[in-house]
């Protein structure tokens, strides 16, 4: 197949990734996407026309050499393909599953102008899974030990990728995690059916084997302050992730049956509440219940799809704009619909109503219409006067984003934060206002994506390396 003509390549349809049947998967927590087999991966890779000036790379936040790894897939040189991706992306098995490719590399793929883009995400996933399953996650050669020590705070995508790069550079790295499990949002936030815990664990294990030290149950700020870390480490990276969830600020948010997405997902994913009472953490009993999820991002999709898997009779996304403005990945929206999720669009909750025992019974919705574009460029939803509706629900989950965690700013007085509590950094170097301290990921940007956090971790690692070589310059 290596000598296909351009026309032949263009005639290959985009290869669909096999999925669990919607009727089946909505009753289990196993991964929805099953992944390509080798022949399908090679066929899909053959769709890439190897542009002279590849646009896909510019669409990738971490600039993976996409045409090169795809060419290696065509040649079935999967080991080398994995090595190419991992030059720029330390978590390809994760990113291949959760990156919003349709607005990144696949959006800029030349083929997307005339038809469907190359399935870059599916191929990345195939290569990463091939490596993990066939030869184990390969560890590149480590440089001579530098004798420098770096503390990485948080074991989510920002922290893991930062730790990975730093250890390759020969520095000693200790990762501090506040929770009892490693992986941050990859384990407490993203559900098993989208990102199996085993995939994350394999990445953590590889880092562990490579010499990264992990400390769980360790809350930087309280167990040890940033200043204390600086006394025993040469540099500190703060990748502590997003913080407290936003609420809607409407009456009834304290009723039982009302969750933040963070709490809901943490109970199910990290604490395995779906397995209650075998696992000790309880959860609202979703069996045959009506569940409303407020929000339209990936987190909202994760929650609503989780609700169906927990036995909900009816699971509804309630979103204040239209489908075109949904911030979620397209794949998540499609999967949600296939599984039976309902979408109520142009509605905004204005009151949660409960019974005398403090349990949620219904939501009052305000119907909306779209007005002029707001600062985000999306058309602003405006209430239509007098048009409200009350809908009975048993549970509600608020998935409208997160603020910042206050613990590190409160305990690190000379660390500058903005008015939302996000740490201020130089975007080129990820340096904070405090010498020797770097930051990246959601604690800097507010809620964003895994790939952006990972990219920030890698920029920080490079910058930390520069700083360790020239510690007098800040």
């Amino acid at each position, binding site marked *: 197949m290596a000598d296909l003509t351009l026309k032949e390549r263009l005639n290959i349809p985009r290869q669909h990734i096999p999925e669990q049947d919607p009727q089946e998967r909505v009753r289990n927590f196993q991964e929805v996407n099953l992944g390509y087999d080798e022949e399908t991966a090679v066929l899909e890779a053959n769709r890439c026309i190897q542009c002279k000036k590849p646009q896909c790379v510019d669409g990738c936040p971490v600039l993976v050499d996409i045409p090169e790894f795809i060419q290696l897939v065509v040649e079935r040189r999967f080991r080398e393909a994995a090595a190419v991706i991992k030059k720029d992306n330390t978590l390809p098995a994760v990113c291949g599953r959760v990156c919003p490719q349709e607005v990144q590399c696949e959006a800029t793929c030349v083929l997307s102008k005339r038809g469907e883009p190359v399935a870059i995400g599916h191929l990345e996933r195939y290569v990463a899974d091939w490596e993990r399953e066939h030869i184990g996650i390969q560890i590149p050669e480590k440089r001579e030990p530098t004798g420098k020590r770096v503390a990485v705070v948080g074991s989510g995508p920002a922290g893991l990728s930062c730790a990975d790069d730093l250890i390759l550079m020969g520095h000693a790295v200790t990762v501090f995690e506040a*929770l009892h499990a490693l992986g941050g949002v990859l384990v407490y936030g993203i559900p098993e059916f989208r990102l199996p815990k085993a995939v994350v664990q394999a990445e953590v294990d590889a880092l562990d084997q490579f010499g990264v030290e992990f400390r769980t149950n360790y*809350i930087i700020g309280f*167990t040890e302050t940033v200043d204390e870390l600086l006394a025993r480490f040469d540099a500190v990276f703060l990748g502590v992730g997003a913080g*407290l*969830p936003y609420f809607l600020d409407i009456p009834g948010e*304290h009723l*039982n049956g009302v969750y933040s997405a963070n709490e809901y997902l943490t109970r199910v994913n990290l604490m395995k509440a779906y397995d209650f*009472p075998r696992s*000790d953490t*309880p959860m609202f009993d979703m069996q045959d219940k009506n569940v409303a999820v407020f929000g339209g991002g990936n987190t909202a999709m994760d929650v609503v799809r989780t609700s169906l898997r927990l036995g909900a009779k009816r699971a509804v996304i309630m979103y204040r704009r239209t489908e075109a403005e949904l911030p979620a990945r397209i794949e998540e929206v499609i999967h949600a619909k296939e599984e039976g999720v309902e979408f109520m669009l142009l509605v905004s909750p204005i009151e949660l109503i409960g019974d005398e025992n403090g349990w949620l019974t219904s939501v009052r919705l305000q119907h909306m219409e779209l007005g002029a574009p707001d600062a985000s460029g999306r058309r602003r939803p405006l209430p239509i006067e007098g048009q409200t509706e009350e809908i009975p629900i048993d549970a509600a989950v608020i998935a409208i984003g997160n603020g910042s965690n206050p613990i590190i700013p409160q305990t690190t007085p000379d660390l500058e934060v903005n008015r939302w509590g996000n740490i201020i950094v130089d975007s080129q170097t990820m340096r904070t206002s405090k010498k020797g301290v770097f930051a990246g990921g959601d604690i800097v940007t507010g809620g964003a994506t895994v790939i952006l956090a990972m990219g920030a971790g890698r920029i920080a690692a490079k910058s930390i390396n520069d700083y360790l070589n020239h510690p007098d310059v800040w």
Partner: protein
Amino acid sequence: MNTIVEARFLGPDTKLLRIVAPPIARKRKPGQFVIARVHAEGERIPLTIADADAEQGTITLIVLGIGKTTKLINTLEAGDCLEDLAGPLGQPSDIQNFGTAVCIGGGVGTAVVFPIAKALKSAGNYVISIAGGRDAASVILENELRQISDEVYPTTDDGSHGFHGLVTDKLQELIDAGQRIDYVFASGPVPMMQAVAAITARYEIKTGVSLNPIMVDGTGMCGGCRALVNNQTVFVCVDGPEFDAHQVDFDTLMLRNRMYREQEEASLDAHQCKLEAHADMRRA
């Protein structure tokens, strides 16, 4: 890690555990708590740090066995380990020299009160401690309180020990007797804290309470521990656990604490036999 070096019952279901946790022992301030897990499938529960010894590197937790997790913790003995222990968490208590401070503990809430009473005494306050319980056996830490208080009043609902009546009856008695009170700190069941707040509000006595909502992560991530204080949503794990008693919406807290009552009972029932078998094994 997290090895228990001392374990003894203070009352029928209330156990004191001293645990090796040097970083927490070094850093903890009165009013802070830890998150603990008892086994690999365990839930994360908050427990107030009742005391700590920085030199020995130990912290003391006092646990009332009421649900599956707490009962399971109370089967642990010296030499056993907790699966996970993280902390210290939360804002330290507001410790000042107020003048005369009354520290009120109800049941296991006395374990929350003890470190704060101790700190208030060190800060120069005249400390009056009231430790209440259903009966004599459920009044805890009375001797410990005597060492750090100027006056101590045990109270029991059934009159089997100390003052016959509720902690609030004793508080009212002190007020009626003309006792000058500049500050009250209370911890215990929500209705008790609410009742204390109602009395001290009448006399405009500054009052602090330590709230005990359901938590998951305890580190400012999940938002499950939200409470209404001064009509604003607060997150007890990072904004508290201590708040101005006169601003707390106790009714909402009480309702929210009942959220998992059915599941908690089912979980306890399902494991009761197992726990008993476990305890028998230990005894054997």
